[in-house]
């Protein structure tokens, strides 16, 4: 119903139409839209776009206002009074060791777990796609079944497990957790992609005397580029934006950005001067990736949304 359907319809996940896709075909529905509403549709869309942008714009504007302004008036005041704009919130945040170190923790969690998921996922996916071994199909079905297991199921048991391994409340623990929960999707996505690699290519390489590892690194991985990119982006965003896992498993002394901000929240109301710029900084990298790699981003998010 979910992921398998999608990939069945769209074998190459990178082909899921991105918002940046080409001009859509003319259909009756759209003709209806233009006939019925004409210019009205445009107006509605502009209004909707504004509605969708305003909340983020509010955060952005608030992040440049000092706490007094935030406490007394709405962010829209800056539209008429540019003098309210100040860098001081960002200044304070950059000079806040807790926050700057949380940026590094976020990186230290996100980058390794993304690499680990791609590497381990690709290895397993290759095995499932092209290697023959007993129980292969059965084993792959199990992995597919794990796709939708909620992370909540693992919180208590893994907390105990990590405690006994001595990696509870460590960055390593968070990385391992995210890697494990990223794997079913990675294996599923890459295996379907690898399976579409023309058999002749592999056979030719095989005839040239390539071993499994060589075949994997020289033929499969390069061909898997688009899927791997989509997977990497999805996993990166997923881990970067995660709060729940980090809340429980990260080192409370040096948490990643999401948890550091969450700790700032406690008593809301008067500290938007910390939260607004902080939230905006956490959004910077995901937004940059989003705008730079729209295609891969959309296909990654689309395919991985089942998680």
């Amino acid at each position: 119903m979910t992921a398998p359907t999608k990939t069945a319809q769209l074998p190459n996940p990178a082909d899921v139409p991105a918002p940046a896709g080409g001009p859509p075909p003319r259909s009756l529905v759209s003709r209806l839209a233009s006939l019925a509403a004409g210019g009205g549709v445009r107006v509605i869309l502009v209004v909707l776009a504004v509605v969708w942008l305003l909340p983020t714009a509010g955060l952005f504007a608030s992040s440049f206002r000092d706490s007094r302004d935030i406490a007394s008036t709405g962010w829209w005041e800056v539209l008429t009074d540019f003098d309210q704009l100040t860098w001081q919130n960002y200044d304070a945040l950059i000079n806040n060791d807790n926050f700057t170190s949380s940026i590094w923790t976020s990186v230290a969690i996100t980058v390794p777990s993304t690499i680990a998921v791609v590497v381990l996922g690709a290895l397993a996916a290759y095995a499932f796609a092209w290697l023959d071994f007993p129980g292969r199909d059965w084993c792959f079905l199990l992995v597919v079944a794990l796709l939708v297991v909620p992370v909540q199921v693992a919180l208590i048991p893994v907390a105990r497990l990590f405690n006994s391994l001595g990696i509870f409340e460590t960055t390593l623990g968070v990385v391992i957790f995210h890697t494990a929960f990223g794997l079913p999707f990675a294996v599923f996505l890459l295996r379907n992609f690898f399976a579409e690699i023309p058999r002749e290519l592999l056979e030719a390489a095989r005839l040239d005397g390539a071993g499994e590892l060589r075949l994997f690194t020289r033929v499969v991985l390069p061909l898997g580029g688009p899927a791997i990119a989509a997977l990497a982006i999805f996993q990166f965003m997923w881990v970067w934006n995660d709060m729940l896992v980090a809340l429980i498993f990260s080192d409370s002394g040096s948490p990643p950005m999401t948890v550091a901000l969450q700790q700032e929240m406690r008593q809301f109301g008067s500290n938007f001067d910390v939260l607004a710029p902080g939230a905006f900084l956490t959004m910077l990298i995901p937004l940059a990736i989003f705008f730079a790699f729209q295609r891969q981003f959309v296909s990654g998010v689309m395919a991985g949304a089942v998680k």
Partner: protein
Amino acid sequence: MHEPGRMSRRKGTRVAAAVIAAGALTLTACSDDGDATPSGRESTIELPDLSGQELEVSGVWTGAERDNFIRVLDEFEALTGASVSYVPSGDNVSQFVGTKIEGGSPPDIVFVPQPGVLHEFAENGWIAPVGDSVQEQLDANFTQGWQDLASHEGTQYGVYVKAANKSLVWYSATAFEYAGVEPPETWDEFVATAWTLWESGTTPLSVAGGDGWTLTDWFENIYLSQAGPEMYDRLVAHEIPWTDPSVADALTTLGEVFGESRLLENGTEGSLQTLFPDSVTQTFIDLTAPDAGMVFEADFVGAVITDSTDAVIGEDARVFPFPAVGSESPVVSAGDAAVAVAPDGEASEAQQAMLTFLASTDAARVWAGGGGFVSPNKSLEFEAYPNDVQRGIAEALIAAGDDFRFDLSDQTPAAFGGTTGQGMWRGLQDFLRNPEDIAGAQEYLESQAAEAYGE
């Protein structure tokens, strides 16, 4: 692991104080220049040479408040040669320490806000009794009452080095002047003042009903002043039930203001949605025509005022002691105790040295200079505080001697006195919503207490 919904009252303290210290730090940073020992005085204690030793200290403070505390640790490093690191413990100290002990690397010194948690630690054998040099400092600088708070079954386990005075009412000078009223001294005057403020067009009271802990502080002040310290202690120990007539009296008194929606900024329902920082800003953000005239809470209100408003403490924002309901004004306080974590039962030389230092006037002086801090150390000269209001709060605290009482809800089991959505927090929120039903509120409180005390 962090404690999510169970927001301890410490949080309020911390956020607030964290912000104030930011302002204070910029001031003290300048005065530090060229001053080897920040205090500039002779040390009153002798500390061992701890060169090469490492100490890890954990407290609830983050942000600027943490920076302020680190100055105290720097002084210790300078005096002993030890290398000290600070790790924020998160909101739930008990769980933090438990996890760290299980993981095998607990911090050496931990700050514990609630006496109840200190007892729990002592019973678990997680912390070690203080040594002779610490006791010496304690005897010299702290009253018996403050010492007793950090002891368990007659053994001294820690030092309450940081205090908060929770019996203060902050008011807008503009609102009082406009209405032509003076700070009240008794409860009746307080109620009359509230009504006069109301007539003048200023809503008299800003109540942070969204944060249950502020309501417990209202109740505690009234109860302490009305029923007296002995009854207060018995209620803490749950020797008398919450259905006791003395509790009914206190609630009736509280109902004189809570029962009048007109006296509450944003009305009864609005108050229940108001969080602590907002209760402060709505009183002091508008200096010409404040929305509310008075806001009750501890000294850390000053932090929010400094951070979020243009009000000048001592001029626009002033303080009077909580009015006397009975014969005496109440003094309710809270604080943080430093304890040495030692699962094997024996504190190291370095740990003892740190506790000795923290109990000394030297440490208190450095700490006080940073602002946002009040010390229960009676030997500390009041000049050490950076402004008059802070000084006044400290004077009131020291003057109370042992007549103060520690925050009641902090001394009860956390399930009763420190958890969102249940116990005292919920009971008093329900009371604020429906102040007529005193008996119902009492029954709820008693049933919750019975459960929490394991009876």
